[in-house]
């Protein structure tokens, strides 16, 4: 299947343009969908994600940090690890966070300090740090 896909791609060099079009299309769809949800019903994508993060998908905050660093904070020096190993580590840590429900423990700790959002901030920063070490892209000059 990979070979057939590669042949297809070799004969259709406009593929990157298509990827861009798909991304932009998806983004516009999500924004339009969210606006529709907002004016017809209060349960927007924001609400759903906020509730999901509070209840169980704590790992989303970690993933936000991972992507923030990978997309926007480039690496000027040499790679610490190969990309595939880095990706594996990123996913592995995400699974650990979910399986061991780390979110609940940290959230409970933060609630005792009367700072419920601190747990999310910790996770966002933690995700950024993991990506700084193993999941950054090359610098643009």
């Amino acid at each position, binding site marked *: 299947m990979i070979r057939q896909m590669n042949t297809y791609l070799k004969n259709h060099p406009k593929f990157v343009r298509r990827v861009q079009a798909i991304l932009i299309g998806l983004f516009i769809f999500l924004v339009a969908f969210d606006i529709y949800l907002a004016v017809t019903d209060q349960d927007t994508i924001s609400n759903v994600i906020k509730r999901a993060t509070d209840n169980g998908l704590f790992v989303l905050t970690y993933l936000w940090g991972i992507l923030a660093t990978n997309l926007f904070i480039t690496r000027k020096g040499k790679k610490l690890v190969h990309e595939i190993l880095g990706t594996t580590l990123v996913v592995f840590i995400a699974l650990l966070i979910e399986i061991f429900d780390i979110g609940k423990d940290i959230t409970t700790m933060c609630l005792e300090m009367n700072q419920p959002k601190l747990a999310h*901030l910790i996770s966002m920063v933690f995700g950024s740090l993991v990506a700084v070490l193993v999941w950054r892209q090359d610098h643009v000059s």
Partner: protein
Amino acid sequence: MGIEKIVQIVVAASIFFLVGFNVILYFNKIKDDTINHIIKIWSYSRYFFISFAWGVLGGHFFLGTKNPVFGDNWYLPPIILVILCIILILIGKKQDENFVLKRRYQILLLISGVAYGHFFWSQAHLDKITFPF
């Protein structure tokens, strides 16, 4: 099927699609065509509003002060956000075609976005708001 379920499915499907698509793009013969790479190129060229927007999403979804700057007002934060993004896009358009943003400003944009999401577009006080619709 409730709206909540539909939204969850839409979000999950989008994520699965993007990840799957990205795996294909990473392993194909064409170099540097993954979604991550493309977004990096966009944000380091004239479309640096993207990093600010990502920061805002983080601050809006995951953080959020109990006392947002605009108080109870629910429409000003997104409207001002759109205006800010338009301003950033316009500044970007003014730059040279080969413009490359310095990394330190990228980090600044990201952190500013988080700050905006947290202090201006907070969801942490939503229970106190009555929407007119």
